[in-house]
């Protein structure tokens, strides 16, 4: 068994996940691998979510079962590669686990400075990871990539540390001055690359959230920033809940509502529209940094 830390949880895993940080102490969650399934057993992808139980079937990869926020069972297909298994494990599967535990997963990255977190929300392809990486050059350390886990504690909403890795498209890497050939693919059939984040560029602990940026694109040439007023923030945050359909218990939806309400009063939320064409994440970060510094 390997012992890891992710999203404030200690995970005991039979599957090695080198991107995760090492953990210690009693595990909150265990992840076990069961006998490989022959490919014929499942060709269709799909999921099933009922209170306390989640199942995900990924063709040629694995079947995943998550129970009661405590156990993850992986039944890998016989010809599956571990990169693909980990991609789903650390994405949708851990998202389902967080939902079962009443932790709020948002679809977004998080960066941290002076022990304050900034969430960068947005749909797939909005440019969350590249903006987070560009903010890294201004002293904002990565706290989480693509999924951010939120907890309400002590009257404050906190963002938990994910793990020090970012998924980036080759074009985004080039715009940051990096050579995509130096990075491995997230899975053999995908162009997207894994970018490991050095320990000094990673914020390894939870922190209270001080600002939220909702990222989208527009046709203009200059980036635009607009503040979203208190109650409207709740609708934005709700929309950016990661795999919201996996929140099956009413009790959990109520918990999320309260957390989203607390966060909407705690932190300002800005809509950041970036130019679709010609804008680099580096200039977007330069545009945004003065606003973030004001919020810390």
């Amino acid at each position: 068994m390997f012992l890891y830390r992710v999203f404030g949880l200690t995970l005991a895993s039979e599957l090695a996940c080198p991107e995760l940080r090492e953990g210690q102490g009693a595990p909150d969650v265990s992840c076990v691998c069961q006998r490989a399934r022959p490919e014929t057993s499942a060709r269709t992808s799909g999921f099933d979510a009922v209170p306390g139980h989640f199942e995900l079937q990924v063709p040629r990869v694995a079947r995943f079962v998550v129970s009661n926020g405590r156990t993850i069972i992986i039944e890998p297909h016989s010809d599956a590669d571990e990169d693909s298994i980990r991609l789903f494990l650390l994405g949708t599967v851990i998202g389902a686990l967080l939902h079962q535990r009443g932790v709020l997963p948002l679809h977004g990255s998080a960066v941290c400075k002076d022990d304050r977190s900034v969430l960068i929300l947005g749909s797939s392809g909005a440019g969350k990871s590249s903006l987070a990486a560009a903010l890294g050059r201004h002293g904002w350390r990565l706290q989480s990539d693509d999924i951010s886990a939120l907890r309400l504690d002590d009257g404050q909403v906190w963002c938990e540390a994910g793990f020090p890795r970012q998924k980036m498209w080759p074009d985004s890497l080039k715009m940051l001055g990096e050579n995509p050939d130096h990075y491995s693919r997230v899975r053999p059939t995908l162009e997207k690359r894994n970018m490991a984040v050095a320990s000094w560029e990673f914020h390894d602990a939870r922190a209270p959230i001080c600002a939220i940026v909702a990222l989208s694109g527009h046709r203009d040439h200059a980036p635009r920033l607009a503040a979203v007023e208190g109650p409207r923030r709740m609708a934005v945050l709700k929309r950016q809940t990661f795999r919201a359909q996996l929140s099956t218990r009413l009790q959990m939806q109520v918990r999320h509502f309260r957390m989203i309400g607390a966060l909407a009063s705690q932190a300002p939320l800005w809509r950041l529209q970036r130019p679709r064409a010609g804008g680099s994440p580096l200039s977007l970060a330069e545009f945004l940094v003065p606003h973030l510094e004001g919020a810390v």
Partner: protein
Amino acid sequence: MSDHQLPLNPATHIRQSSRQVHCLLGDVFVLMDAASGEYFELNRIGSRLWKEIAAPISIEALVNRLSADYDVDPITCNSEVLVWIGKMRRLGFIEVEDVFGD
């Protein structure tokens, strides 16, 4: 019990439904429908009304309180409050108790 067919009269008591959860953001309430999970934002006046119906209150008393605080005549106030109640009832956020069976 709330009943969507129940007609409203000045003595009808209304209250926040138990089917919702709400939170206060500044001076405005946001409600979640516990059945659909949808969020609804109330405006300032809606938020004031919402605060007043935390416990059962007659429509007459509600209108009196509001027209005293806002610069509005009781007749206009009454019709606007009834529109608001109708809307909130359809959304399931208000329970109606016709305590006097009038």
